């Protein structure tokens, strides 16, 4: 089926070319970083993880959100999602691929990455994260490919694929839970040391991921003959709205616990992120934009006229996606390092190369996504014609 990715319109090739250009630029920057060391980035002794790990954390959520179409279709026989299940699975494949690339970009000694397997350490959450992410990647490629092949041959998917599908559902939850445990189990990092970090991660993931899927469906509708259908998209909107509201609720819970308990260590990072701490307010504009975008998006989702029109729906999805990307992709990871264990405040600004590498990895993810979607949609279009 891969050959289907090799034929396409000029627009398709133009898009591929744009992605390849960004990938090349990212690769060039990575060569620089590889030769110089991670000092090429804006990270420092105090803020020792930056946008790479932040993107990784956010994208694990996007990957996990595939389950929001897989679960209703396979467990509840919600037929409307049948058409887009494959899109959810392939979106997960692209997102996990980006996660793995961001981890690799962040390693000081990338050539030693296999040490994680050569010296397995079950006590380390990173060890488990590596396992769950790679298995999830495999599950989604495997299930997606087998089901799509069956669709192409116009036969029912083989029965033996069902166990893999059923395993992939709790597995999606596991990848984001384990990723939350990377943070939530560290003593002395108050901002991360919260039992609702994993639920928070899942709520924001199940909002941001399907929001992206809605956007993709709207784009696909314009550039191909494939239409996910109004009902499927509106059902996704319902999922996004609930998940977004739950996420806002969780964030408000964090605010309550921190500020009502009045324990300084619990307030410091929230102060730093939303109000500024001792005159340091580097991230305040970002977090406020995130809050405003999030609220506006949710209000738009709640107004029937706004969520039913495609243009306003698209705007709401973009706002929500950006809002949660800032919240998790910037605030959570980078904010967690401020103040440092010695209660020092160190600002972090990503370097040019760091941003180029980040864009390059996103481009790689969209490249994988484009190719996989192209294949899946070509198969579906063929069926529509015949």
């Amino acid at each position, binding site marked *: 089926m891969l050959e289907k990715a090799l034929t396409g319109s000029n627009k398709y090739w133009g898009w591929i070319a744009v992605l390849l250009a960004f990938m090349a630029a990212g690769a060039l920057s990575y060569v620089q970083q590889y030769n110089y*060391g991670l000092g090429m980035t804006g990270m420092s002794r105090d803020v*020792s993880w930056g946008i790479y790990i932040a993107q990784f954390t956010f994208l694990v959520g996007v990957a996990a959100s595939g389950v929001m179409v897989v679960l209703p279709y396979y467990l509840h026989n919600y037929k409307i999602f049948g058409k887009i299940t494959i899109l959810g699975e392939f979106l997960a494949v692209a997102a996990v691929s980006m996660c793995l690339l961001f981890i690799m970009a962040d390693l*000081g000694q990338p050539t030693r990455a296999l040490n*994680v397997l050569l010296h397995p*350490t079950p006590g*380390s959450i990173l*060890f488990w994260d590596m396992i769950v992410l790679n298995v999830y990647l495999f599950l989604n490629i495997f299930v997606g490919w087998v089901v799509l092949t069956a669709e192409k041959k116009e036969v029912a998917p083989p029965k033996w694929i069902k166990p893999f599908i059923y395993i992939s559902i709790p597995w999606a939850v596991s990848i984001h839970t384990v990723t939350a445990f990377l943070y939530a189990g560290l003593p*002395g990092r108050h901002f991360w040391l919260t039992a609702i970090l994993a639920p928070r991660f899942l709520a924001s993931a199940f909002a941001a991921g399907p929001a992206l899927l809605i956007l993709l469906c709207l784009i696909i509708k314009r550039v191909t003959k494939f239409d996910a259908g109004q009902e499927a998209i509106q059902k996704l909107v319902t999922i996004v709205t609930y998940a977004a509201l739950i996420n806002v609720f969780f964030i408000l819970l964090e605010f309550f616990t921190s500020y009502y308990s009045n324990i300084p260590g619990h307030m410091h990072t929230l102060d730093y992120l939303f109000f500024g701490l001792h005159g340091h307010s580097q991230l305040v504009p970002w977090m406020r934009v995130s809050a405003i975008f999030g609220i506006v998006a949710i209000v738009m989702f709640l107004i029937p006229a706004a969520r039913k029109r495609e243009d306003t729906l698209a705007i709401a999805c973009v706002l929500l996606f950006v809002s949660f990307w800032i919240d998790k992709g910037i605030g959570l990871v980078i904010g967690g390092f401020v103040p440092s264990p010695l209660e020092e405040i160190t600002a972090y600004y990503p370097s040019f190369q760091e941003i180029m590498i980040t864009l390059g990895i996103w481009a790689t993810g969209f490249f994988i996504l484009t190719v996989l979607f192209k294949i899946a949609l070509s198969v579906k279009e063929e069926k529509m014609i015949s």
Partner: protein
Amino acid sequence: MDIKRRQFLKIAGLSTIAGLGAPAAFNLLLKGGPDTVSYASSGGEAEASHEAAPTGVRLGMVIDQRVFDANKGLAQKCTTACHTVHNVPNFGNKKDEIKWIFEVPFEKAFTGKSQYHKNKNLEDSSFLVLCNHCDNPPCVRACPTKATFKRKDGIVAMDYHRCIGCRFCMAACPYGMRSFNWRDPRPFIDQKTHNKEFPTRMRGVVEKCNFCVDRLARGQQPACVEACGNTGAMTFGDLNDSHSEIVKLLDNNFTIQRKPSLGTNPSVFYIV
């Protein structure tokens, strides 16, 4: 037939559970239990006192701040000695900075200990901070390759050749005592003082104080302790040896540890 067997198993199971559990439950109710009041502990010392007599060696350090306050410049001497012996590079900027032992004011070393009127002695005093060689080290727990590990003698050590540079240990250390080689450190080691007996590191790995594990193996004291001479500012020894000098110091002085509430059981103690 099947139903009968299931019922039998259920009854048998339930009665076994009841039989096993009931006497214990009754006993608890009747006596109220011997431990109606017991103490949860967070501090390392308190924890240790509840445990059975510790066995084996646990190396630790006592820092007598009174001596450092009386000898200005002594702490700086310790830092220089350590950083020279271990070929710690000097980049001259904060972003790339690597440090194993350094001076910080009281509120940074002991965060969360508020004082309404700051003790006069503390005002211009600075405390040496270094890896605490925790008995329960979060960095070791976090490391995905066992590149950082706890030795039998309590030293938390690093294998620079196994470290993949993921920096999970840096996020995990609640004391901020770990440094990363953001770039090649070798050009930034002073060639005049380069110590050929200790390896230099490559870029992309984490490093920190190792309690001078190599010097101990040669029968020497840690470099910082040696730099203090016979001032008694720093005392190094086995926390489990009741005849050691360090245990005598702990017995006779009120000491504090950094962030004891985290349950890491630091092996570095301060006499303030």
